[in-house]
Each structure stands twice: as C-alpha cells, then as structure tokens.
C-alpha cells in the first residue's frame, strides 16, 4: 500500500494542518479524516489530521485500481496515492463476419455484425473519506467496416467456386456497417424433370347426371351410366422429360431428381397400343380405374331392384339386375339384360339377349336392336311383296279380260285401274304402306347414312301407294318395278338387323315381347301377350289369349283355352305351328293362309304346302325348352 501524502494540502489554501489529540476514543475537534477526490480525472488526497480516519478507496465498476502492479479488487485504506494507478475499462467497437455454407451446399451466406464501442472515463468526485471510483461514458466509438478482401480470401480458402461468388453483395455487406445476412455465392440448381403422367381421356364417373329440363323433374331419370365403346381411347401415357444437372458452390455436379415414370396397366377389356402408351377399350362397357389398373367392365350390375332409388338404367354394355324391375322404369342396354327377379309394368330394351328369371307382368321387352321398327318393317315388306304380286296378277288378268275395255287406260294411264283395285280389293296394301312409312320415319332419325338411304327408298316407294298417288302410275310395270325395289330394300333392311337376340322369360302376362331371334317362355304360361319372334317362339306351358307371331315356328304345349280371349298365332309362309293341344277358337295364320281351330286338336303341327294348310303329328311335345 502506498504512503499517505498531503497532496491535497498543497492545493487547498488557508487550511492548516492541526493535530488534535484524542482521548478515550473520542474525536478531538482537531481531528480530521483523510479524504480522496477525483478532479479532472486525477486522484487527490487529503491526509487525516490528528486521529482522523484514513481515507478509503473503493474500485467501482469498469474501474481498475492498481497498487503498483497489483490489481486492487477490494476497498483499501490509502496512506498516500503514490504507486496507485487507475485505469477505466473501455468498450471497443467490433466488426465481425461469418461465412455459412448451406446444408445442401447450394448457397454461401455472409453474416456480418457491427457493434459500436464506447469510450469511458473516470468520474470526477468531491473529497470523501470513502471514495468509490466510478466510470462514465465519454463518447461512442463507431464500428469499423470489414475488409471485403478478408471475406474473399475466406471463400477462396473454403474452396468456393469463384464464378459463383457475388462480389457486389460482399462489398455491400462489408461496407454497410449494418448487421446483415446475405447470399454471396449460389450454386446452379439442377432443372427438375417433368414427371411422366397418365392422362385419363375418358370419364371415370359412374353416372352422368341429367340436365334439368326447365321446371320438370323426372324422378326416374337419374342420369345415364358412363360407358365407352370398343375402340375408344381411354388413357394416354406421357413419358417423363429428364432434368438438367446443376453444381454446388464447390463446383461439384448436382444431379437432378429422378423423374416419375408411371406405367399404363391394362386390365380386362383394355388393350395397350402404340408401344404401351395408349389404352384402348376392347369391349363396350364401363371404364374403371382400380388400384392403377384400367379396365372396362362390360357388365353393369345393379345389386338391387331397379326402382325410384336407381331411376331408369341405360348402359352401353350388359346390365344385370339382381332384383326386380319396378313399375314405369326402363332398363336399356347396348348388350344383354339379365333380370334375376321379375319385371312389373316396366320396359326392357336390349340390343342382345334378355333373360327374365321370374315373371314379366305388363310392360314390354325388346331384344335384338334399338330399332325395333325395322323388324316389323322387314316383316311388312315380305307381306307386301306377296300382296303386290297378287295386285299385279289381278291387274294383268283384268287387262287381258275380253269384257274389260282398256281404252280408257291409254288415256288415264294404268294408275286409274290400279287405284280402283287398291281401293276395292287390296285396301290393306295402302294401309300396310302407311304403317311401313310411319315405322321407318321413326327409324330414320337414329339410322346410319347407309341404312338411311334404304329407309328413304322404301318410304318413297311406300308413298306411291298412299292416297291418290297410285293414279300417277302410267303403266303397271312401274308397280312391278317398285315391287322389285322393295324386295331388294327389304333384303338390305334384314341384313341391317342385328344378329338375332333372344328373350328368355319364365312367365309372361299382358306384356309385349319382341325379339329378332327366338323367344322362349320357360314357365307354365304366356297369357294375353303380344309376342313377335324373329325366329322361333317356344312356350313350354300354355299359350292363352293374345297375339303370337314368329317367322319360323311357334311351338307350345297348349294353345288357347275354352272361354278365354282370342288367341292368334301367326308364322311366315314357310313356318310351322305345333302344339300338344289346340283349343277351339284359336286362330292360325301361316303366310297368307288362315284358319280357325274348330275342334280340339292334339299333338298337331300345322304347315302350308302348295298354298294349302296341312297338318301332321306334332312329335316334339311341350318339352321344347
């Protein structure tokens, strides 16, 4: 510790050092404590007088007190200030930077920090016996800029690619004296690839909703089921486009991510073409994408009754109804219809076979074509061919008759006599032509161009026999020509009919059935129905009341019933009608030959030979199904 010195006394005028003795611990009035002061940053001391207390010096915050070389950390009693030195801790400015390389090595960040410093000085203080040394801020010390060269050198040392460095960003960050974080080098990112993808061209909706028609709400119309035709494109595969490699800040190549390469997977009913890049429907049906596999289901399964909850069903493929088809509903299929239950006063239209496992009560079933009128038209044309032949024969016979003068025909044309005959004897010919025209008018709207030509040809010919048009025939040969044309048209229409479709039903009552092929009623009864079979009608049980027509044959167990309504069976001119039992009153027509069963006939097969009705034993029996 330094010795006490009376430095203060030298500076304080008029004050005299006086020693005041102290007794018994009491301070004498001459005793004065020693004191310390900081004046203009310098330490000054007044020595104590008498028994006055010696001054104490306490180092405060930021102030360091040295006694010689030794740092004083606790209050000390100062005997003199020689050897004491005082320093004040300063707060210097700071400038720093940090270079950070991103985890993916694609960016280099420069993080700068600038801290302003502060200069401190020793606080002046008046004389006190106990003096605490304090420091006070004297001035701010601005931070120094960072030398960009330091950063560049750092980057070089790190191995950062020079061409990827942004020097201007470094300069701005270093000289800006503001804390910042800036990208000073950036790698070249790889260009990502374009993933391969599967474009579904068709709709995968189960059903399309119908558009509302004004205020009308059709509760039976729940929209049509989605379907595609065979050959329709379902999906296309677009190959991936590879990406371009990049490089990181060290110049190392960064490969692009691998592109996704989906694969078209064809399930049943779907074929891949064009090296597997295009999926095409092999069958008509409903397109389904299940677990990445594209398939076309040719069968629509309605797992319940067709009723108000399902609405009408229309599907281009096959339809299977596991329940019944309820009143007023329609099931329309581009393929077959298989009803596992019954059909009640509903309409079934199928381009292929129709199977009704239980009853058909009321309603209608059409199998074989969506142009049912064509079947009737073909049948009418065949009938008309024969009847026009009869007309021609009658005309020629008349013209050759010695008692008929034909002089007027040379003036009026043959058409006058033709019209007379048509009105008087063959009035059914114009009527049939009128029906034919109406039938084909309905078909014309939905027919292909080729078929339309035929239909229009038939209709034009038909119109020549309607109303007063027959008067326009100049010569009978024109009728003969029309007959030839109509026969040819009929053959073309017949070809246009779809391949024969059959109907199988267990029981039918008060219903209309029409098939281009066979109709088979497998159960006990067909009652009061209107049935038209393009080929053969087979009834395993009884056939009572109604109209039953077939081209080739009608074969039944029992036909007609006593006391029941009229039962009429009709086949083509080369057809046969056979049954185990014909009841009296049953009307039969084979070609143009008609008869009414007057007495019960058993196991009889009727046919026409040389224009006359014949019969023989019907051996096939009722077990025809």
């Amino acid at each position: 510790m330094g010795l006490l010195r009376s430095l203060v006394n030298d500076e304080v005028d008029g004050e005299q050092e006086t020693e005041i003795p102290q007794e018994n611990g009491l301070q004498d009035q001459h005793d004065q404590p020693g004191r310390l002061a900081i004046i203009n940053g310098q330490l000054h001391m007044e020595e104590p007088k008498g028994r006055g207390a010696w001054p104490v010096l306490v180092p405060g915050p930021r102030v360091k007190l040295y006694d010689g070389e030794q740092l004083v950390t606790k209050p000390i009693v100062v005997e003199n200030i020689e050897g004491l030195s005082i320093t004040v801790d300063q707060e210097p400015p700071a400038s720093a930077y940090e270079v950070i390389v991103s985890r993916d090595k694609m960016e280099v960040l420069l993080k700068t920090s600038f801290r302003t410093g502060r200069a401190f000085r020793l606080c002046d203080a008046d004389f006190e016996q106990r003096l605490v040394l304090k420091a006070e801020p004297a001035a701010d010390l601005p931070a120094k800029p960072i030398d960009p060269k330091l950063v560049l050198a750092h980057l070089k040392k790190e191995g950062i690619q020079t061409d990827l460095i942004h020097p201007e960003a470094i300069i701005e960050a270093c000289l800006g004296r503001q804390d910042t974080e800036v990208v000073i080098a950036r790698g070249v990112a790889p260009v990502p690839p374009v993933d391969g993808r599967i474009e579904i061209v068709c709709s995968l909706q189960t059903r399309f909703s119908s558009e509302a028609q004004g205020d009308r709400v059709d509760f039976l119309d729940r929209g049509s089921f989605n379907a595609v035709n065979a050959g329709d494109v379902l999906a296309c595969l677009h190959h991936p486009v590879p990406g371009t490699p990049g490089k990181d800040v060290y110049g190392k190549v960064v490969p692009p991510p691998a592109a996704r390469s989906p694969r078209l997977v064809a399930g049943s009913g779907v074929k891949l073409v064009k090296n597997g890049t295009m999926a095409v429907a092999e069958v008509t049906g409903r397109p389904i994408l299940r677990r990445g596999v594209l398939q076309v289901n040719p069968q629509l399964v309605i797992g319940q009754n067709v009723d108000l909850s399902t609405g009408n069903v229309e599907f281009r493929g096959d339809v299977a109804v596991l329940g019944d088809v309820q009143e007023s509903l329609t099931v329309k299929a581009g393929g077959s219809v298989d009803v596992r239950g019954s059909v009640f006063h509903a309409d079934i239209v199928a381009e292929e076979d129709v199977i009704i496992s239980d009853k058909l009560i009321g309603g209608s079933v059409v199998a074989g074509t969506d142009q049912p009128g064509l079947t009737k038209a073909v049948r009418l044309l065949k009938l008309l061919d024969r009847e026009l032949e009869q007309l021609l024969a009658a005309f020629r016979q008349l013209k050759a008759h010695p008692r008929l003068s034909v002089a007027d025909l040379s003036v009026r044309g043959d058409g006058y006599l033709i019209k007379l005959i048509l009105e008087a004897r063959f009035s059914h010919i114009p009527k049939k032509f009128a029906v034919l025209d109406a039938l084909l008018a309905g078909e014309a709207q939905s027919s292909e161009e080729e078929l339309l030509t035929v239909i229009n040809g038939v209709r034009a010919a038909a119109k020549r026999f309607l109303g007063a048009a027959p008067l326009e025939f100049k010569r009978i040969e024109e009728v003969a020509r029309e007959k030839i044309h109509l026969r040819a048209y009929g053959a073309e229409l017949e070809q246009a009919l779809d391949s024969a479709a059959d109907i199988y039903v267990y029981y039918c009552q008060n219903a209309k059935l029409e098939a281009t092929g066979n109709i088979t009623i497998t159960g006990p009864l067909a009652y009061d129905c209107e049935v038209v079979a393009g080929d053969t009608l087979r009834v395993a049980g009884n056939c009572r009341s109604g109209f039953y027509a077939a081209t080739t044959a009608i074969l039944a167990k029992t036909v007609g019933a006593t006391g029941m309504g009229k039962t009429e069976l009709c086949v083509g001119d080369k057809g046969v009608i056979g049954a185990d039992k014909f009841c009296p009153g049953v009307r039969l027509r084979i070609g143009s030959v008609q008869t009414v069963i007057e007495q019960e006939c058993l196991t009889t097969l009727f046919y026409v030979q040389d224009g006359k009705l014949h019969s023989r034993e019907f051996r096939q029996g009722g077990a025809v199904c």
Partner: protein
Amino acid sequence: MLRVKVIKGVPEVVIALEGSLDMGTGEALQRAVDELNLNRIHSLTFSLSGLEIIDSTGIGQLIGYHRALSQRNGRVYLENDNAEIEEILGLIGVREILRS
C-alpha cells in the same frame, strides 16, 4: 253404246244397263242418275246382266255412286248374272267395296 233403263220405284230405284259402260258412254248413265233425286233414294240397284263391255272408268262410276249414296245412308246394289262381267267385278273387288 249404252242403254240405260231407269225403273223408278222411289225410294228404291233400279237402273238396267245394256251394251258398253265405258269412258265414252258413262255420260249417259250420269245424266240418268242426275235426273234422280238422290236425296230421296234409299237404294240404287244397277242391273249389269245386259252389259257386254265395261271399263275401269265405268266401274269407277259405279263405285262413285256407292260412295255418294253411302253418305246419305243409302246403298248401291249390283245385279248381275253375266259371269264374265262378274269375273271383272271380282278381280277388282267391287263387291267387297259395296259391302263395306
């Protein structure tokens, strides 16, 4: 040449025709019918047994009378025992239309 003999017996009239009923002679028949008041006639019978020739115009004329009388709830009948003329009527279907 057509001879038309009208046997008046209103409301049932019988007209006997002889000769040829054709485009050239039909006018004679028409005059005879015109002289009759069809409104008062219930039935008109044409006797054709004396006809030797007929043509489609003549037949059309007969059918025309049938239509005219049918509209007044009257009827036209044809009497004929001439097989050849009957054959012509049959081939054309005249009797069928008169029955309708």
